[in-house]
């Protein structure tokens, strides 16, 4: 039983890992960022490439992926997203286009395949990331075998969630972000540099996705399409938790993860997936703003 609960927790942590960045870009900024999954993918490729070309392990890849995807996020915000604030559906289309561009860039090795140049670690194939031996296998607690790598993911997710909470609720820039969530025009009137804060927030959300990618690379396959399915799960979590609520995202990820784990253990994975979607639909119908909606005036 403990093992089943642990797997549920692990599923929840993986959901949260992807959803954290979305909770910020979608929740706080009102941008439906379809390229979020591609940020996860880029993070995973940073792990692959740093392993091949620098010989470093997954721990070095975490800050590296954060920096790379944050810069990429900054670029996307500066070039495209900035012009689309307040136009929710347009951001969806634009970022979807960006997602396809990024995917193809990786698949075509930034166009170098046309010149017959091959970069090891890129291209359409499946890539794999070596995981340090001490993160493989299991350890025992209370007679239950606990998966080391999943424990590692849970710890990293917890750390990222705490860090995000700290930045949003305990720093000056976080206060500005929250002010912009409530009312961007009023925030600007109070002297907050909205464009700058928005750019930084978007970069931070993208950076979180990059770290999620590093974690995913350790136990899933790395390939150009890997992010597409994750972004859907991420949106489920954010919508169910309540747009703009960090606590809501954390709780809804935990709940969906445990439901998935328990139903899968009792019946099978295919049914579990259907039940998860059913629960999300029921919650959106009963509480259209999610579990923890911001109270607006």
């Amino acid at each position, binding site marked *: 039983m403990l093992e089943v609960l642990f797997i549920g927790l692990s599923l929840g942590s993986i959901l949260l890992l992807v959803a954290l960045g979305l909770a910020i870009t979608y929740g706080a900024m009102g941008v439906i960022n379809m390229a979020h999954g591609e940020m996860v993918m880029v993070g995973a490729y940073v792990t692959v490439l740093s392993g091949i070309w620098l010989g470093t392990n997954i721990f070095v890849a975490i800050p590296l992926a954060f920096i790379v995807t944050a810069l990429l996020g900054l670029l996307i915000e500066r070039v495209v997203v900035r012009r689309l604030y307040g136009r929710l559906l347009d951001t969806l289309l634009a970022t979807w286009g960006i997602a396809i561009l990024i995917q193809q860039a990786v698949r075509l090795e930034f166009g170098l395949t046309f010149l017959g140049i091959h970069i090891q670690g890129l291209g359409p194939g499946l890539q794999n990331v070596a995981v340090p031996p001490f993160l493989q296998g299991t350890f025992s607690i209370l007679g239950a075998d606990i998966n080391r790598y999943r424990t590692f993911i849970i710890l990293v997710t917890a750390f990222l969630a705490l860090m995000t909470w700290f930045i949003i609720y305990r720093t000056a820039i976080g206060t500005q972000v929250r002010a912009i969530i409530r009312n961007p025009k009023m925030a600007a009137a109070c002297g907050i540099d909205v464009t700058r804060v928005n750019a930084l927030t978007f970069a931070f959300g993208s950076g979180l996705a990059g770290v999620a990618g590093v974690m995913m690379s350790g136990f899933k*396959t790395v390939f150009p399409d890997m992010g597409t399915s994750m972004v859907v799960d991420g949106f489920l979590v954010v919508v169910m938790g309540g747009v703009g609520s960090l606590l809501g995202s954390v709780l809804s990820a935990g709940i969906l993860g445990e439901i998935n784990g328990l139903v899968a253990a009792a019946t099978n994975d295919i049914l579990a*997936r259907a039940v998860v979607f059913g629960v999300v639909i029921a919650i959106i119908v009963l509480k259209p703003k999610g579990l923890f909606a911001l109270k607006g005036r």
Partner: protein
Amino acid sequence: MAIDRRRFLRNGLLATGTVITSPWVFQTGARAAGEVKVGVLFSLTGGLSIIEKSLHDATLMAISEINAAGGVKGMKITAIAEDGASDPKTYNEKASKLVIQDKVPTVFGSYTSASRKAVLPVFEKRNNLYFYPTYYEGFECSKNVVYTGAVPNQQLSNFIPWIIKTLGKKKFFIVGSNYIYPREMAKVSKILIEKNGGEWIADEYLELGHSEWGSMVNKIKSSGCDVVLSNVVGDSVVAFYREYKNQGLTHDKLPICATVTSEIEIAAMGAEYAVGSYTSFPYFQAIDTDRNKAFVERYRAFVKDPKAVTHHALESSYFQVFLWKQAAEKAAEITPVGIREAVKGQEFDAPNGHVKIDPDNLHTYLTPRIAQWLPDGQGKIIDAYKEPVVPLPYVAYGETPTNLFCTGKGLETAKLKT
């Protein structure tokens, strides 16, 4: 004579009609100018491109080798390559284009059953010919498809008895991706398991392309099984083997015996996750013959990748072009029907050994082999049949070598019900 408007229109239409139809009527096209056009239809983009690109390359390599050796009846083979884009609907459109517009007498293509089923109506309606290189679930009998991959009796009829007798494993946990191939394979497996005195304690599926294996592996762990039979497909395979090891399961105690895990998946997951597990295929890159070693070298040179791996469907993609060439030379005329009649009973020395097209069901005689995966990502062949085995696409429904369901006349549906 005044040209009134109606006559003008009619003449105009007639003239246009002639212009449009003339290439279709008079162009025997494809084979007029000292060349034979063939279609090559694999996914070069999308999720399946990872594997299908290698089948595409192997097909083109065979064509270039045949051309270098003088072509077919002195004519050069020209490949018209189309991209199925990992999408059955696109497959159907491209197949129609190749058959109707390019008028090719044969198309080589498809990896998944879904894409084969999507193009099947095109080839049956136009009475054209399709060469399909992938192992598949059987249960198909088409006069317009030549199947050169393994069918269940060539992957399982040797595998299950071997697991029970040689490995001494009796309790099977069957796991697969949720679509037709794994489900048909599971059906055949259950019959064989029960016939050989084993038992199956679970038959579970995960969505195709899904890679969250936590719950399933935990279930395997607590199920009390002593062997796992995997029909998992695609990138899910990688996540499955990784999760398997990460939950503390080992292949020496509880081996995974797989029907889909090939060299390409092993390379993608990192060989350490698969060491000690087993796979059943008629071809492995590790087959220790000069012919196969030369084939691997030529393939690596052809794709300019010194580490490229070869696998079963890739090898079939390669040798089926040679079977086609022999048939085209034997046929009086290079037409789909001419080639189909001539390909019956064709034999060829492929990298995996001797292969032969069954004259009745157009499937291929192949030699079943079982390999155990080594740390270098190659299979060590530990069991092999002495000779090729007759293909039985309906083995799950009671088909035997002496009682074929699928013959030159088509499927004998009456036998299915008994």
